[in-house]
């Protein structure tokens, strides 16, 4: 059963279907959402765009749920799907090693070259010890996401999931369609 949902694209933000007003677009929109809705988590600025997107989307989702206590819990999973994995971070890291004359591989860039880092960022923020997972598919497919998340409740402890589509090609092209799903 879906309890809440959040949609973010470079020029549109919906929380439970209601539009949120904003001034910025693209990755600047994510920073605006952070400043207006979070503001006390400077690690946000170190994240790649995929993680920023997942982070602010999950914050909006959890604010909609309310009663945030940040108590450690193991019964909530974070499971996302997308098409571009960590391609933006990959391209950024590649740029730090492309030129042999200017070869300075960046550890801060490299760590984001895994799509599941965003699930870890959300787990850290909210003290979730539950399942975290990232699955890549060729294209958005609601059925695959639905079936997969339904299967994820086979875990003996999982009672709710922050899940859905979380894709980022670059700072101007991204989409979050995530929701809070409860075990039936």
């Amino acid at each position: 059963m879906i309890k809440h949902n959040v949609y973010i694209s470079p020029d549109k933000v919906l929380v439970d279907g209601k539009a949120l007003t904003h001034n910025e677009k693209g990755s600047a929109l994510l920073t605006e959402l952070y400043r207006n809705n979070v503001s006390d988590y400077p690690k946000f600025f170190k994240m790649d765009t995929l993680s920023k997107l997942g982070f602010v989307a999950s914050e909006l989702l959890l604010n909609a749920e309310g009663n945030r206590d940040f108590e450690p819990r193991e019964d909530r999973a974070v499971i996302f799907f997308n098409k571009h994995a960590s391609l933006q971070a990959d391209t950024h890291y590649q740029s730090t090693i492309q030129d042999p004359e200017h070869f300075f591989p960046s550890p801060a860039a490299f760590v984001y070259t895994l799509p599941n880092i965003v699930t870890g960022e959300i787990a850290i923020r909210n003290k979730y010890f539950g399942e975290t997972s990232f699955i890549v598919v060729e294209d958005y497919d609601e059925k695959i996401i639905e079936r997969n998340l339904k299967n994820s409740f086979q875990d003996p402890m999982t009672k709710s999931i922050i899940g859905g589509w979380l894709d980022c090609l670059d700072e101007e092209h991204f989409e979050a369609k995530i929701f809070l799903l409860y075990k039936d």
Partner: protein
Amino acid sequence: MGGRSMIVCVAHNITSPLGMTTAENYAAVKAGMSALKHYDGLWGLPEPFVASLIDRKAFTDDRYTIVEQIVIHSISKALENTGIDSASARVLFILSTTKGNVFLLDKRETGFPQERVKLGVMAKQVSNHFKNPNESIVVSNACISGVCAQIEAMRYLESGEYDYVIVCGVDVQSAFIVSGFQSFKALSPDECKPFDANRCGLNLGDAAATIIFTKKDKVTENEWVACRGAIRNDANHISGPSRTGEGSYRALKVALGDLKADDVAFINAHGTATPYNDEMESIAIERAGLAGVPVNSLKGYFGHTMGAAGVLETLLSMQAVNDHNILGTRGFETLGVTHKLDVSNQNRPTNKRAFIKLLSGFGGCNAALLFAKGGLHD
């Protein structure tokens, strides 16, 4: 577990520098062989490194990238003589990889369209090759992907949607991956030494490994059953392992369930040989009440094969139990973790029939999966 259906391994393959079949790989590891070699100047990298690399020249089908070719080889070998129709809609492909065709991002690589760097597009090459009509899924959960992909397979089979799930884990090393781990100061300048007092980092490795599962109501004594597993997060740091082993401990607890520690032949740990990982695992294993169970790591033979590791290390552990053997931890000499783990660099005998595969990775993720030969008996 009488009456309940079980998820059973029906076929498998390991493709690595140590061999092109599971049997070849097991024989090499049992004999103490390692594929780790020193490389200096390879791929234009300024720093030398030690890795386990597949001979790229042995793969000559230029329709596919080296990564795709190794996957196709591994799955083809696994499917041999099984009678499984890979073109059936009742068969699902699950790939496990961290970086897939990432080497294509290098501007000097021109042999393939950039599209192929997308993991879903890469997976499509593979499923098309086997004429499979389903959308494949790619599990990309850092270094625990290979166990996560097997847990996904168990769930899909449990729900009855498919008759067979083909899981293939793969990663092929490149300047991208090696330089990244170098920037993390995570690579050992020599062959790695898991759980050793003088360990100073990991080695990377190429491999693909395939395991095919189905669901059965009855299993014979010699069939391998994937019993239960879990994925848990440390909720601590995106690259540093937890100081309390939080995620690994919790994943181990679910995997062990009501089985007695005494019935576990060994824990095949992640054992990357970085100072923090091995220490974290010792804490988690202790906390889970498993400190008395033998622990081994296979990184000294293959290096860290990333997306392949979960499948490759599972398969070798199955072969070892079949052979009543606990594989020695190559590179280990003196225990160098806080909690007293039972680690040896020698092969040791066992008559037990179950083992736990344990992994951890960036993003704070951890996974554990319990396997039992002939299934669990109440």
